[in-house]
C-alpha cells in the first residue's frame, strides 16, 4: 500500500472507531457516576497511574528542563537575549511540555498496561464472569481507571513542572553562569496562574484520553494473545495522537483571546 492509502485507511479507521468510543465513554461515565463505586479499585488505579509513573515522568521532566535551557541559550545568545531563558523554561514547561510529555509517557506506561490487562480479561472471559457476579464491568473496571487518569495526571504534571524548572535552573546556574537567586526571581516574576492552570486542565484531558483509549481497546479486544497485542499498540498510538490533537484544541480555547 502506498503511504497515502495507508493514511486514508488510518483516518477512516479512526472515524469509524469514534462512534463506538463516544458510546463507550458515555456509558462508563453515566453508569460509573451513579455507582455503586469501588473505592479499592479507584485507589489501586490512582496508585498505579500516579505514584508508579513518578520516576518516568520525573526523569523526562528534568532532562527536558535542562535541554530547554541549553537550547534557548545557544539560540538566544545570538540576539543577546539570554535573560529570557528563565521565562522560556517556565512557560514551556507549564503550558506545553509538562502536560504533553507526561501525557505521552503515561500513554506508553499506563495506557498500554490497561489495554493489555482488560484485553486479557476479555479473552479469558473474566469480563463475562464479572457480569455473572452481578458486577457491571463499566463500573468496576472502566470508571475507576478513567477517574484515576483525570485525577492523577494533573498531580503528575505539577511535579513535572517543578522538576523541569529545577532542571533548567541547574543548567543555567552551573553551566551558563546565571545567578541562582535572580534566576529563581525572574522565574516566579514571570509565572502566572493561568499558565499553570491551563497545563493542569490539559493534563486532566490527557489523563482521561489515555485511560479511555486503554480501556476501550482492551475491552473490545478479540482473538487471543494477538488480539491483546493489537489492542495495546492501538491504545498507545491512538492516545498519543489524541493528546497532540486535543493539546492544540485546549491551547486554542485558553490562549486565543
Amino acid at each position, binding site marked *: 500500500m502506498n503511504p497515502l492509502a495507508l493514511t486514508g485507511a488510518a483516518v477512516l479507521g479512526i472515524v469509524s472507531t469514534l462512534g463506538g468510543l463516544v458510546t463507550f465513554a458515555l456509558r462508563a461515565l453515566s453508569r460509573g457516576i451513579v455507582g455503586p463505586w469501588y473505592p479499592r479499585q479507584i485507589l489501586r488505579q490512582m496508585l498505579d497511574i500516579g505514584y508508579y509513573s513518578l520516576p518516568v515522568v520525573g526523569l523526562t521532566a528534568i532532562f527536558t528542563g535542562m535541554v530547554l535551557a541549553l537550547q534557548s541559550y545557544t539560540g538566544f545568545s545570538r540576539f543577546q537575549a539570554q535573560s529570557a531563558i528563565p521565562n522560556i523554561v517556565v512557560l514551556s514547561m507549564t503550558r506545553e511540555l509538562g502536560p504533553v510529555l507526561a501525557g505521552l509517557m503515561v500513554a506508553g506506561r499506563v495506557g498500554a498496561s490497561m489495554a493489555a*490487562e482488560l484485553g*486479557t*480479561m476479555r479473552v*479469558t*472471559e*473474566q469480563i*463475562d*464472569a*464479572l*457480569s*455473572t*457476579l*452481578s*458486577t457491571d464491568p463499566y463500573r468496576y473496571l472502566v470508571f475507576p481507571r478513567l477517574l484515576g487518569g483525570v485525577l492523577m495526571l494533573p498531580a503528575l504534571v505539577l511535579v513535572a513542572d517543578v522538576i523541569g524548572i529545577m532542571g533548567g535552573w541547574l543548567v543555567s546556574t552551573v553551566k551558563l553562569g546565571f545567578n541562582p537567586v535572580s534566576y529563581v526571581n525572574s522565574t516566579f516574576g514571570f509565572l502566572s496562574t493561568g499558565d499553570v492552570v491551563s497545563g493542569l486542565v490539559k493534563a486532566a484531558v490527557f489523563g482521561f484520553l489515555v485511560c479511555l483509549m486503554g480501556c476501550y481497546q482492551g475491552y473490545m479486544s478479540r482473538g487471543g494473545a494477538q488480539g491483546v497485542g493489537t489492542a495495546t499498540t492501538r491504545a498507545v498510538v491512538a492516545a498519543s495522537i489524541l493528546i497532540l490533537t486535543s493539546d492544540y484544541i485546549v491551547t486554542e480555547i485558553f490562549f486565543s483571546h
Partner: protein
Amino acid sequence: MAARETKISVKGLAKAFGRNHVLRGLDIEVEAGTSVVVIGGSGTGKSVLIKSILGIVEPDAGQILIDGQDVLAASRRQAQALRGQIGMLFQGAALFDSLPVWENVAFGLMAKAKIPRDQARVRAVETLEAVGLGEPVADLFPAELSGGMQKRVGLARAIATRPAILFFDEPTTGLDPIMADVINDLIRSVVSDLGATALSITHDMASVRKIADRVAMLYEGRIIWEGPAKDIDASGNPFVDQFVHGRADGPIATIQAPQRRAG
C-alpha cells in the same frame, strides 16, 4: 414426581458466527429443582447455548424464558434481575487473576449479597473446603494454581452465593477421577439439598450418570434426544449410542467440518 414449574425454557434458539451456523432452532426446558446435562461433540455449541442464556452471546433468533419471563424482550434491569439468579462455572474457570483465590470466591458474596469482607472470607474458605481446597490456597493467586484447582475455585465461586440456578461448563474436565467424583457429589448435593436448578455440560459419561436427572444431546444445532438419565443406555438413538459408548464409527462424522449451511 409431582409436576414442577419450568425454570428455564429455550425456544427456537439460533446463533450463527458468520457462516458458521452453530445453533439452528434449539429447544430445551429445565424444570425447577432438576439437573439437566447437555452432551454433544466438541464444537457443537454447548457453551454458546449457556452463554446465550447468560446474555454473553447475543442470539440471532429465539426465546429464552427464565421463570416464564422472556429475558431477550425484557428491560436491561429486568433481564439483569432474572440472570442474577444464575451462578456460572466457565469452561476455562475465568478467575480474576488480579485477586487472591478467596476474593474470587467471595466476589459474589460481597457484590451481590453485600456481606462485609471479613465475613465473606470465612464463607469463601468454607466453600473452598467443600470443593476439596481450603485455607492454604485462600491467599494464593489463580496463576499459582494447577488447572484442576482453578476449575474447583471457579466452582466454589459459582456456588458461593447459593444461586437458584447453576450452570456448569465441563465441571470435571482436568480433574483426577477421585476429585471428579467429589465434584459430582457436590453438584448433586447442591441440587438436591439446596433445591437449585442445574444445567451442566460435560463429555464425561461417569459425570452424566451421577449428576443428571435428564440428559439432552446437542447435534447439528438442535437437541436430537432428550430423556431421563436412566434411559441413556437404552435411548434407541444411534447418535446417543455412539456418544455414550465413545465409538469412532456411527452416524456422527468424526472429521468435524465447522457446521455450515449453504445460503
